[in-house]
C-alpha cells in the first residue's frame, strides 16, 4: 500500500459514514447515495495529494455535495424524487415499543425530507454532523451569514411542517 493510500485511509475513510449519511439525506435515495459516495470517494482519492488542510471531514463532505449536484441533473431527468424506505433492524427488546419508535422516526425523516434542499443540507450538517458555521460555509460554498439565516429558516420551517402534520 503506497503512502497516499495509507494517508487516505487514515484521514478520509473514517468519514465514510458521514459522507454516506449526507448523500442519503441530500438525494433521499439509497441507490443514488451509493453512486454519489462511490464517485465522491474516488474523486477525493485522486485529489488527495492536493489536500493540504486539516479538516478532512469538511473537505470530503464538500466533494460529496458537489457530486450530488453533478448527479442531480441526471436524477431529475429520471423524475426521481421519492423517498425510498429501506428495512431497518430495530434493536429494542420490546417489539411494540420498537414499532412505535420506528413510526416516529419515519415521520421525522419524512418531515426533514420536505425541506428544500438548500435548507435541508444546512440543518443536517449542523444537527447531525455537528459541523461549525464555518465548516458548513466551506462545504456549501455560501457566506457564513447565509448559513446563519438558512439555519434559522430551516428550523422555523421544520417546526411549521411538524405543526401541519403529515
Amino acid at each position, binding site marked *: 500500500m503506497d503512502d497516499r493510500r495509507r494517508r487516505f485511509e487514515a484521514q478520509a475513510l473514517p468519514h465514510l459514514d458521514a459522507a454516506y449519511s449526507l448523500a442519503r439525506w441530500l438525494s433521499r435515495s439509497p441507490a443514488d447515495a451509493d453512486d454519489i459516495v462511490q464517485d465522491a470517494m474516488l474523486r477525493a482519492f485522486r485529489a488527495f495529494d492536493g489536500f493540504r488542510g486539516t479538516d478532512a471531514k469538511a473537505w470530503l463532505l464538500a466533494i460529496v455535495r*458537489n457530486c450530488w449536484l453533478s448527479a442531480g441533473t441526471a436524477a431529475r431527468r429520471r423524475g426521481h424524487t421519492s423517498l425510498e424506505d429501506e428495512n431497518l433492524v430495530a434493536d429494542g427488546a420490546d417489539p411494540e415499543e420498537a414499532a412505535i419508535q420506528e413510526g416516529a422516526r419515519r415521520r*421525522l425523516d419524512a418531515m426533514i425530507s420536505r425541506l428544500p434542499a438548500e435548507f435541508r443540507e444546512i440543518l443536517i450538517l449542523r444537527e447531525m454532523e455537528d459541523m461549525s458555521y464555518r465548516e458548513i460555509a466551506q462545504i456549501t460554498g455560501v457566506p457564513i451569514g447565509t448559513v446563519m439565516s438558512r439555519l434559522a429558516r430551516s428550523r422555523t420551517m421544520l*417546526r411549521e411542517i411538524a405543526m401541519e402534520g403529515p
Partner: protein
Amino acid sequence: MNCTEPLQTQAYLDGELNGTQAQAAEAHLQTCEECQALAAQIADLSDALRKATRYRAPQALRSRILARLDREPVRSSARSFWFGAASGTMVSAIAAAAIILAIVPPAATTLAQSVAQAHARALTDGQTIAVASSNHHTVKPWLAAHAGLSPPVADFASQGFVLAGGRVDEVAGRPAAVMVYHHGNHELDLFAWPDRGSHLPSSGMSYGFRIRVWKSGDVDFAAVSDVDAQAFQKFVELVQAERE
C-alpha cells in the same frame, strides 16, 4: 418579531460565540422573551432530530470503494487530471471544478484565485448563466440592473466566441458582472467590476484555468477559461480591442 438579535442568539446556542460575545448573548437571553422562546424551540428540535436517522455506509459499499481504490494507479494521477481540466472538454472542466471547490479555502487569497473559484463554483452548480441571450442589448441592461455596473458587452460570434448570457457573481467578496461566452465545447467567463485600486495579477494559471486580469479605465476585467492558450489569447485581444 421585535428582537433584532435572533441570529446572534442562535449562534450562541449553537456554540459559535465565545468570550465577550457569548456573555453579551447570554445577558440578552436573560431579558428577551422572544429569544427565550427561540432557545426552547431550538432545544426541542435538537432533541427530536437526535431520533432521526443517521445513515451508515453499507458494508457492501465500503468494500466496493476499497476495491475501486485498489485499481487506482499507485503513482499520483493528479497531473494527468489537471492536464485534462486545462485542455479537455467542458465535462472534465466540471469534474475539475468539483474538486477545486473542495480544495480552495473559503477565503481565497488572491483575486485570480477568487475569479477561478467563482468560475468553478458556477460550472459545478450548472449556474453559469442567469440571463441567457446572445443579444448584447438584453445582457447589458440586465447586468447594469443587477451588478450595479454597466460593462461593455459585445458579441464576437463571427470570431468564434458566442455571447451566451450573463450573471452576477462575487469576486473577493464584491459583486462582479460576468459575461459568458461559448467557444466550441468550452466556456469563457469575462468578469468586470469597478476598480478598487487593487494590485492586479496579469495572467497565469489558477487551479487548472487560464486567467488574465487587467484594468481598463475605471473597470477591472478578468477572463477565465479552460480553452487552449491560443484561443484564450485571441479572446482577450478581442475584448481589449473592443474597449479601446
